[in-house]
């Protein structure tokens, strides 16, 4: 843990040093940015803007994860599914997130639905690809064991296949979350009048470097909180059977 703290501190020090040589309108010092952030946090509006963005991300991600997992499992576990879907998933994966944003705004108008659908459509392909790859690494011998003991299809899927996919599902969640944040900011930036992306565009319009950085920082900190308060503990819980995971925890 202290190594992580150290690397964050080092970055802040570097930022502080560089800012000494720059005009505050180009690069304000970290202290000023944090002060601005602190001040923003005393205003209820900040929370409502962040909340709106979070709402879009969470709903869009839930839809994206559900669709992505179903597609990924279908591709991984059935030959027909793989043949029918793999080209499309790869095509959808290569389309830039910006395109989904624009299309959804044109189709659904300037509202939450546009953002949510864009996130769902943008995050589903990478999640599907991750799960699909994960199914390639499944230990067939264990499925064989399940069949030998006459486990039903559902038991084989839920108790033997899905647990082996958990590392891939977690990786997909992280990746999907990253994509979801990018899409939501883009959609908010180009079309909506609320959310973190809108605030960034607003302060950009006002040439306020310090506010742009303060909002970016808020965004980053939120992501870190999600990682360390939700994803990491979840991962540790789900992979505690691995000796390596235990050694790490013992050493920390």
């Amino acid at each position, binding site marked *: 843990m202290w190594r992580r703290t150290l690397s964050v501190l080092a970055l802040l020090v570097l930022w502080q040093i560089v800012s000494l040589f720059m005009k505050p309108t180009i690069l304000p010092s970290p202290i000023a940015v944090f002060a601005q952030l602190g001040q923003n946090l005393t205003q209820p509006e900040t929370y409502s803007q962040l909340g709106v963005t979070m709402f879009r991300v969470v709903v869009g991600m839930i839809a994206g994860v559900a669709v992505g997992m179903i597609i990924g499992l279908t591709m991984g576990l059935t030959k027909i599914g793989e043949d029918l879907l793999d080209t499309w998933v790869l095509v959808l994966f290569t389309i830039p997130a910006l395109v989904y944003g624009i299309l959804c705004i044109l189709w659904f108008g300037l509202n939450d639905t546009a953002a949510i659908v864009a996130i769902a459509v943008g995050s589903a392909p990478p999640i599907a690809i991750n799960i699909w790859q994960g199914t390639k690494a499944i230990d067939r011998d264990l499925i064989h064991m399940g069949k030998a*003991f006459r486990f*039903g299809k559902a038991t084989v899927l839920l108790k*033997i296949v899905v647990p082996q996919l958990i590392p891939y599902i977690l990786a997909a969640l992280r990746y999907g979350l990253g994509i979801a944040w990018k899409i939501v900011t883009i959609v908010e930036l180009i079309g909506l009048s609320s959310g973190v992306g809108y605030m960034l565009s607003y302060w950009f319009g006002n040439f306020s470097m310090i506010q742009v950085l303060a909002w970016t920082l808020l965004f980053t900190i939120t992501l870190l909180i999600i990682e360390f308060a939700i994803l990491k503990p979840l991962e540790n819980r789900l992979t505690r*059977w691995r000796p390596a995971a235990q050694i790490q925890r013992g050493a920390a």
Partner: protein
Amino acid sequence: MIMTESYLSIDHLHKEFPRRGDRPLNVLGDLDVHVEEGALLSILGPSGCGKSTLLNIINGLDDATTGEVRLAGRKVSTRTRSDVKIGVVFQQPRLLAWRTVRNNVALPLQEMGLPKDEIDDRVRRYLALVGLAEFADYYPLQLSGGMQQRVSLARGLAIEPDLLLADEPFSALDEFSARRLRQEFVRIWAETGKTILFVTHNIREAVFLSSRLLVITDRPARTYLDLPVTVPHPRKPEDDLLFELEKSVTEDFMRMEEQVRLEKEMTR
């Protein structure tokens, strides 16, 4: 003549695996074995001759190329698996790494729909039997290879099968634990009267345990030797009769390998 059908009958069983760009690999060639109910049959044979494949076919996990397997009066295939309760101890432990030892043993029992008390009771009994009572809450990767093998043995026994297919269940154990487990194994067999097919590379083990001994040849596998072991249980590992038998089977085994070697040289 009226023939009463044996519990497990293997008739003209032939199995080949297709190979890309080559003739298929001929694994089992015309195997004929009839096993009576309540037998403890040891299967001995060179590595790679098809013993694990044979157990898979009996369990309906793989199909014969030709010939048939009938279990308790019904033909077995991957589509028509027998309703006889079959327990399996694989050559590798095949445990679910993310489940504790306890939950690995419990899973097949849950699948069978047993009540929870019964499951808890059986898990405790069979883990104690294999000497792993203290390790119920460990995860498989925290155990040694031999301990994992014993968990797998407990899992196979805990369903209290009518037919147990055990593929070298003691191979990763030290001689001392193996001895103790063999004794327990025979005791369970004698008490329950269930049928056991037991693959091993250890002739002494086969002679000590089984009521009948089957030696099969290298690929394509056929019966080389099929003889009853009539020494009554409980047996002592140091029994002279058993020792004699071990010696003669070992000699037969050597002769078989020698024959194979000669045949290979002739065809060259």
